[in-house]
């Protein structure tokens, strides 16, 4: 950080959840201690409850119609605005990532830069993915037939446990780029960059509820989200093998789309896999009719 007057006492930040565009504490009133990589106290983070998780789903569902119905161009504009806001807070995120992950400043800066660039990359995808994965189908009959991708709905995202910011951005951005709304469970041990991201989202033209950020015990929050009947998909990246299996079993009850965890180098080219994981394909048919001697007909 910049030079600080040695006599001045700094102002601590109260880290809060980000739900429905607002910054509530956990309804349970609980917090837990967050430390840096060496065990020194950094801050208290909200210890979210099952009720917080359900409230987040309500917010995400409420936001889904507007966000999925926005034009792809508009979603791209908003995502790009998020990258702009991130750039402005770059120093803060570098500090938080360095403290959380125990990285030297240069490495933390590289991770934050990669994360910002990844937002820009996904911002550009919003109005292109439909052309890549959708299209007209040449059916053997007098029909116009078009397949288009649509967002799955409300998606729970368990952010990676070890990459507090680049990993977080890499799993969240593709989910909302395609029009889904998200309930993100931050890294349990490294939640502060995720909670700060909420502050960025709140000032980026992103409608409230499109992204909801929860901190706390991953297993405690994820269980009700995996079983929730109004959640359409779940990304299990932040779950270990035992928890991932439990959650996948719970998710089967409403046939959620499940993205299983697997080892990922967050610096590598992500491809389109995470964009397509929470997309549905809708195919619409319509007769083309014919312009014969008797005129047009179905």
């Amino acid at each position, binding site marked *: 950080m910049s030079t600080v007057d040695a006599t001045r006492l700094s102002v601590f930040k109260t880290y809060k959840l980000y739900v429905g565009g607002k910054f509530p504490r956990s309804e349970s009133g609980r917090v837990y201690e967050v430390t840096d990589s060496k065990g020194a106290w950094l801050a208290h983070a909200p210890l979210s409850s099952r009720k917080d998780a359900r409230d987040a789903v309500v917010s995400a569902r409420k936001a889904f119609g507007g966000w999925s119905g926005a034009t792809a161009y508009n979603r791209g504009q908003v995502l790009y605005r998020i990258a702009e806001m991130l750039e402005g807070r770059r120093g803060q995120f570098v500090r938080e990532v360095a403290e959380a992950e125990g990285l030297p400043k240069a490495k933390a800066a590289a991770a934050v830069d990669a994360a910002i660039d990844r937002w820009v990359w996904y911002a550009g995808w919003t109005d292109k993915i439909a052309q890549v994965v959708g299209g007209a189908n040449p059916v053997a*009959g007098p029909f116009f037939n078009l397949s288009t991708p649509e967002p799955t709905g409300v998606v729970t995202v368990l952010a990676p446990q070890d990459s507090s910011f680049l990993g977080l951005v890499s799993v969240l951005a593709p989910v909302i780029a395609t029009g889904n709304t998200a309930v993100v469970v931050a890294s349990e041990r490294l939640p502060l960059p995720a909670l700060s991201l909420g502050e960025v989202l709140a000032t980026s033209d992103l409608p409230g509820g499109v992204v909801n950020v929860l901190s706390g015990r991953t297993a405690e929050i994820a269980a009700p989200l995996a079983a929730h009947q109004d959640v359409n998909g779940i990304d299990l990246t932040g779950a270990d093998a035992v928890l991932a299996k439990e959650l996948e079993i719970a998710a089967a009850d409403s*046939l959620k789309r499940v993205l299983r965890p*697997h080892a990922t180098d967050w610096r*590598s080219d992500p491809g389109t896999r995470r964009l397509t994981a929470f997309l549905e394909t809708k*195919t619409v048919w319509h007769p083309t009719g014919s312009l014969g001697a008797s005129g047009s007909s179905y």
Partner: protein
Amino acid sequence: MASVFEYAPAPESRAVVDIAPSYGLFIDGEFTEAAGGKVFKTVSPSTEEVLAEVAQASAEDIDRAVKAARKAFGKWSALPGTERAKYLFRIARIIQERSRELAVLETLDNGKPIRETRDTDLPLVAAHFFYYAGWADKLGHAGLGADPRPLGVAGQIIPWNFPLLMLAWKIAPALATGNTVVLKPAETTPLSALFFADICRQAGLPKGVVNIVTGDGGTGAALVSHPDIDKIAFTGSTAVGKAIAREIAGTDKRATLELGGKGANIVFDDAPVDQAVEGIVTGIFFNQGQVCCAGSRLLVQESVHDEVLESLKRRLSTLRVGDPLDKNTDLGAINSAEQLARITALAETGEAEGAERWSPACDLPSSGYWFAPTLFTNVTQAHTIARDEIFGPVLSVLTFRTPEEAVAKANNTQYGLSAGIWTEKGSRILAVAARLRAGVVWANTFNKFDPTSPFGGYKESGYGREGGRHGLEAYLAPSSPEGER
């Protein structure tokens, strides 16, 4: 209602099909008995005549079939795509050549009208093999990376409503992409899959690439839980689909699930009534309504409700229910006694809950499993018959006033497979189609299928798509930087 003109019977000949008294399991290119020697009978639903005895595969047999498929996988997946393509083209051609035989066989074993097996099922079966044959040597151009890899051994479980067509939907893309398969046909309709085994032999398909195991739900469960299966492709009930999703949790097995539906067929007040009525009839009475994407909920705009219903009832009175082998038959038999009992019970629930039941006068044959085409009016969204999949020739009629209400009612279901829209107004079609949470939307048509057109559901209708370029994804691991999917 008596018809003005009576039709003389026009039965299709059974002589084109030679059904053996018994069939074994098709494993590693040979027909063999089940390990336990157990067999079960398959009957013609229209007469209850026993058609043949088939082997009941046990877990031991499944293991043998999976081992055969695994053994065959190395060579099959390493084969140049052009060579795999030619095997599939051969299969497609042989299906075309034997299409009348297979259509009659399917009608005998399933109970559906010959008009449908001859004009819909069989042409689509052949077309599906032709379509995916052409993909086998072009997979690097499918948008799944330059060198996408097959997954391995696919366990495939298919239902009884379109036995051979569902087999084609499963086997054609699996083979084109270099996978090998173990396929289990439905307990009540095993014969066309066993005839397909013979087609594989005629085509010279390498041993073990396609294995057909017959049996019941227990056989299917053994296939799903076999540790050396890489992919499950299932079409059937939502309850079983959920059980499969639970079973494979925490494994590397991938799944595509094509499950139930409760499709809304929405008729607006400006729709041409005669065409809409034909679409309603196709939507719910095609294949006796035993179709996962059936338009089983008619949502009709209040202002035209009476006119549409009057016309619909008049049309239903002309439907011919009876001998499926008769070329004039519109509705054949229900597939099994069990399914008939389920339809009967749900229809009784509809009456008990206060909906108004109507069927045209029609004489049903005395033997076999039959259910007259049935309408329910005064149905509300809370009624069981508006919520549960009936999988039979039963239509629930609801009304709406505004497009908003139509969309809300159409989406008010756990399912999301299909929907229909009938209106002359183009912008309304597009606006409504965009808001329906369903994988297939038919506008001013219904129940159209094509190998190039992806098919599959939203929500509890399952996940994954079958057909088209999308159908390849289910059987390939892209060679993207992240590798596995």
